[in-house]
């Protein structure tokens, strides 16, 4: 009888020890290897899971370009698309990668944020359709069902594209499929989707030999804009200019390295995101490279074209997405002053 209770107590303490051990290991922080001692921590919240769009960032980190200029850069992954700007405004991260439309919306809400560089010069958002849907141009969407990612300004982009093509938007049924754009098309539940990227979902489908029809949104009548931008708080732009300039310098070197060796960059993406497929990431990096440099060769990597921003901001305003035209308000939503060779 005594053995029973001793056994019970032993089992109970073993259970407790296991739980405590698990707890301690969970609480222990994972230390990143720090190359140079005197670096300033700098958290960057990505727009989504690490992918090809972040190639220059991860390459610059891996090659130590950031630590050379005194920055210890940590990427973090959000859970939804509005999160990066929210946490940036709240002061929890130092920089957020977001979308030009999203930034303009945030500023319209009163958040004091500014974009200091563009990762991608053009929109990546596209209308994508499988051949079986018989959609080859925007006007073919009349009377069909389009899957969207549930993002308001993308719906507006779709309506603009439809109107430009002479289609009545109300003849098109929109279904919110979240981020399951490709499965929605594969299952035949939608004729086309809006919200997939020509450098991601389209390539996925191409690698599956599905030969999708891809219409980037700026080819469908929506004014061009920078799909991915680097955003910081306005006060940081005022006070931490040195760090921001250093960041962009290092990032530019990273971009050059990606051009030189895209395969290595793809491997880095997979290391950061084990779910990513290296073949897709490499194809995506190579497809995106032409869109990362501005068309005007004298402008540096990350250049934000003022005329394009003005036009797009005006478009958002006339579409009722924002309450005031960004061109009329005080400080502009973007600045090129920290890009290499600028603002000096």
């Amino acid at each position: 009888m005594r053995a029973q209770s001793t056994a019970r107590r032993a089992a109970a303490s073993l259970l407790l020890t296991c739980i405590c051990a698990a707890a301690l290991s969970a609480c222990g922080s994972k230390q990143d290897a720090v190359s140079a001692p005197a670096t300033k921590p700098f958290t960057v919240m990505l727009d989504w899971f690490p992918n090809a769009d972040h190639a220059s960032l991860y390459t610059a980190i891996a090659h130590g370009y950031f630590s050379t200029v005194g920055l210890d850069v940590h990427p973090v992954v959000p859970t939804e698309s509005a999160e990066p700007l929210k946490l940036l405004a709240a002061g929890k991260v130092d920089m957020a990668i977001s979308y030009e439309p999203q930034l303009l919306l945030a500023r319209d809400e009163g958040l004091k944020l500014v974009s200091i560089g563009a990762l991608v010069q053009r929109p990546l958002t596209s209308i994508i359709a499988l051949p079986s849907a018989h959609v080859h141009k925007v006007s073919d969407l009349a009377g069909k069902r389009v899957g969207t990612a549930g993002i308001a300004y993308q719906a507006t982009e779709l309506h603009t594209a439809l109107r430009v093509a002479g289609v009545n938007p109300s003849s098109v049924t929109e279904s919110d499929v979240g981020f399951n754009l490709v499965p929605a098309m594969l299952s035949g539940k939608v004729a086309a989707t809006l919200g997939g990227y020509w450098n991601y979902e389209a390539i996925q489908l191409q690698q599956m030999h599905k030969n999708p029809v891809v219409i980037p949104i700026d080819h469908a009548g929506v004014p061009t804009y920078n799909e991915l931008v680097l955003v910081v708080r306005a006060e940081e732009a005022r006070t931490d200019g040195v760090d921001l300039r250093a960041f962009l310098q290092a990032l530019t070197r990273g971009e050059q390295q990606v051009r030189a060796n895209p395969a290595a960059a793809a491997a880095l993406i997979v290391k950061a995101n084990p779910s990513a497929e290296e073949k897709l990431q490499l194809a995506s990096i190579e497809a995106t490279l032409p869109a990362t440099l501005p068309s005007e060769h004298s402008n540096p990597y990350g250049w934000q074209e003022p005329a394009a921003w003005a036009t797009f901001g005006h478009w958002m305003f006339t579409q009722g997405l924002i309450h005031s035209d960004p061109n009329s308000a005080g400080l502009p939503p973007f600045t090129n002053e920290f890009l290499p060779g600028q603002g000096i």
Partner: protein
Amino acid sequence: MPIQLKPRERRQQDTSGGSQAALTNAVGHAPAEQAVVLDGVSHAYTDRRGAPVHALADVSLRTARGSVLAVVGPSGCGKTTLLELICALQQPDAGILRCEPAVLMPQRDLLMPWLCALDNAALALRIAGLPRARARERGAALFDELGLGGFERARPHELSGGMRQRVAFVRTLLSGKPLLCLDEPFGALDAITRQEMQEWLTGALVREPRTVVLVTHDVEEAIVLADRVAVLAPRPGHVIAELSVDLPRPRTRTNPAVIALREQALRALNLGATEDGR
């Protein structure tokens, strides 16, 4: 030797005219060997519907220290109320009640299923602050003495009804009170087990003498176990007969003297029944 804990105050009620009983902290003993003294005790309470129930009316009883008083009577004669008054769970509305410190052993054994028999028995000691090892030591000694050796680690669900009552009795003993109030301790057991338990209880009281007030519906049991038997009639509960049982222990049911006393008691009970026109 009876196990003593910290002495507790006794309650002394002296009322006339039914006013609220006054508590005193006097640490005096009941007169001489009288462990229990009831004089003209009356008590009523209101039932769930708000109607008054006269549980006891003018009850007078005495019992000497170390002796067993059995209280028999049909249901409704106030036996349980009597025990609760003796154990000071309630105060009588009228009359004098002076008793030694008492502990109540309820009808159901109420053993805690998560404790082994020994821990159940030693409960009062643990409540008093004794560390578990010490409490178990004392309990184990009593277990051995009373023939329960070997059952210390058994869980209540593993024990028979009779064993559980025995453990409950040891628990009652270990509470350290000199007066035990037993409320139909063997009521739920079958006849054969009941007889075993009566023999066991007799032996236990020889080893651990206490003053006992025993409530039972079994007249035979009362005569076998007690030194004095009080017969109560119901509505309101009052004493209609008191018998002295001056027989040597252990007593057998077949003993003519026992049978004779049993007849006496039954006659008194019937009398009580016809008295109330039942």
